[in-house]
């Protein structure tokens, strides 16, 4: 497993190994789970109340299915840690934050200064997403 480089949470990190989504029903006490791109994040919904960490895997940064998985979990009320793992790059961090990710375990360490610039670049956003930011239309109309 790759190391967490960026984390935007105050609670203690979850160190349980993340189990594959498919094995979840047998391992009834598991608090950490891993979702691969082709898997349905909604299969996790019945177990959400005991899950503290969801790792969403990005084998290739060009495969955007993990963005939908993340938003689906946040829309379902999941408040635990949501970690992007794998081919996570500087220029995707801001988008991932918008979709609800709050920790990042990139396969190759990111340049910290570049990551900070990327994460603070956009003062405003056009859409409502999973990060609670007020979209521009909200600011226009209150």
């Amino acid at each position, binding site marked *: 497993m790759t190391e967490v480089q960026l984390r935007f949470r105050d609670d203690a990190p979850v160190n349980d190994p993340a189990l594959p989504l498919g094995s979840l029903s047998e391992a009834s006490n598991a608090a950490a789970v891993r979702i691969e*791109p082709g898997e*349905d994040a909604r299969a996790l919904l019945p177990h959400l109340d005991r899950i503290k960490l969801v790792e969403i895997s990005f084998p290739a*940064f*060009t*495969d*955007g*299915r993990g*963005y*939908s998985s993340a*938003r689906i979990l946040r*829309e379902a009320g999941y408040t635990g840690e949501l970690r992007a793992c794998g081919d996570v*790059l*500087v*220029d*995707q961090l*801001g*988008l*991932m934050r*918008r*979709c609800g990710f709050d920790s990042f375990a990139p396969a190759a360490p990111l*340049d910290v200064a*570049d990551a900070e*610039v990327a994460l603070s*670049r*956009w*003062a*405003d*956003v*056009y*859409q*409502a*997403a999973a990060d609670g930011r007020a*979209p*521009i*239309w909200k*600011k*226009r*109309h209150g």
Partner: protein
Amino acid sequence: MYKYDQYDQAMVDTRVAEFRDQTARRIAGKMTEDQFKPLRLQNGLYLQLHAYMLRVAVPYGTLSSAQMRVLGDIADKYDRGYGHFTTRQNIQYNWIKLDEAPDILADLAKVEMHAIQTSGNCIRNISSDQYAGAAADELVDPRPYAELLRQWSSFHPEFLALPRKFKIAVIASDTDRAAMRLHDIGIQIVRNSAGELGCAFYVGGGMGRTPMIAPLIRDFVPLDQLITYSEACLRVYNRYGRRDNKYKARIKILVHEIGKEEYSRQVEEEFAHLLAQGIEPPIAELERIIPYFADPAYEAGASDTLDRSDPDFALWVDHNCHAHKQPGYMIATISLKPVGGIPGDASADQIRLMADLGRDYSFDELRVTHAQNIVLPHVRKADLHALWQALDAAGLGTPNLDAIGDIIACPGLDYCSLANARSIPIAQKISERFAAQDRSDRIGELKLKISGCINACGHHHAGHIGILGVDRKGTENYQLSLGGCEGADTSLGQITGPGFSEDGVVDAVEKVTDVYLANKQGEERFLDTYRRIGMAPFKEALYD
């Protein structure tokens, strides 16, 4: 037309700064080309055969004269003095240097323009009816809805790494001038039986190697749910669109493979879920946008008569002007298809001249059409002659709209790294072959479209006559198809048979038009005759 407020301006300015930073990191070696590629593509920058190509977005094809002027200036300053208008109502520059690209984007941002998401696997520039706001047959102006979608789709965090590119068109009349059903999503603004406006959604159309006509997925989405429904359509696609084969990754394949009923069922389920998420802008946002597209200050009682005593002028009016909803006005189309020219190309001087003419004769507004021409949407009939004289003097007065010389062609192997064959020289030879006005007039409406590879950027599937360039054992070979059509009666062309050489295909087009003229009944267009008599007589003339 739409004007940026401080938010819109800040968004494009931020994008310029972001891309400048990304380009600097790429040049400094902090990113690989593979990592940089999606970023540059989503800023409109392709690496082509000879240089970088920059594709600038023209949202729903609408330009002010100030914007058009800057497009001309960019052609001079950063390119070789030309711009190329595209089938997606955009403009491309073919000779761009990577390190200058951020400067071009900064020049564009000064006139409220950008190149955001004009390429890459994301929601592309939203296209629309080039006659929007001027056509007599439209229900409402479709562009405010396109603008709402533009803002929603720009930098959408969930949908920037889709399986493949995603194209949306919005229209609001029954006559479809935007090839709406050949888009990933085609939206038609309609009125329901209660008199309310809403959106009919057609999903899963497209050209490329597997052309499909989009089926109707939902006949009425209320206006205050437009964004939410679009988001549901996209989410189902992002999750379940194929990613194992780039040629099967467009939404048309997903809709085709699972069926439109199953796709729409999944969308409905996601839609019901998303309605509770509060992602829809309030209707006040649409009401804020709509007045930007209000009618210009037409002259009341403008003369509705036209002096047709100059035969060349009358010819141009008959070919290139279209009825306007306002008495005393017409919609004028500037053909970028001179005989022997490159379809869609305009020099920097021509672009600036069109900007001036838009300012002087069309309330400061111009449109780019998907047929690669330029429209002046609101011209007083009394000004048409002066306009035509100025155009004619600059080589922009070709009277061939929708005629055989008004050819759509992709850049082809002269520029494009994907192409298998050249398109431009074929277009040039055909337009020269049919250059005689009386010959072109006898043939009448004939939409001829040429693609230099199976990706179909030249829309050959939708051509009354379509030409597809392929590579056959190292030689360029051209397949001919007949009977394609965009619009309300959308159909896909059928291949005639074995392909032709470069010169052979020009002869073949001539034979096809001869068969039409020999069989034409009454006022039939080429397409009507083809549909009546079928492929057999054409095949016989071509291959026996």
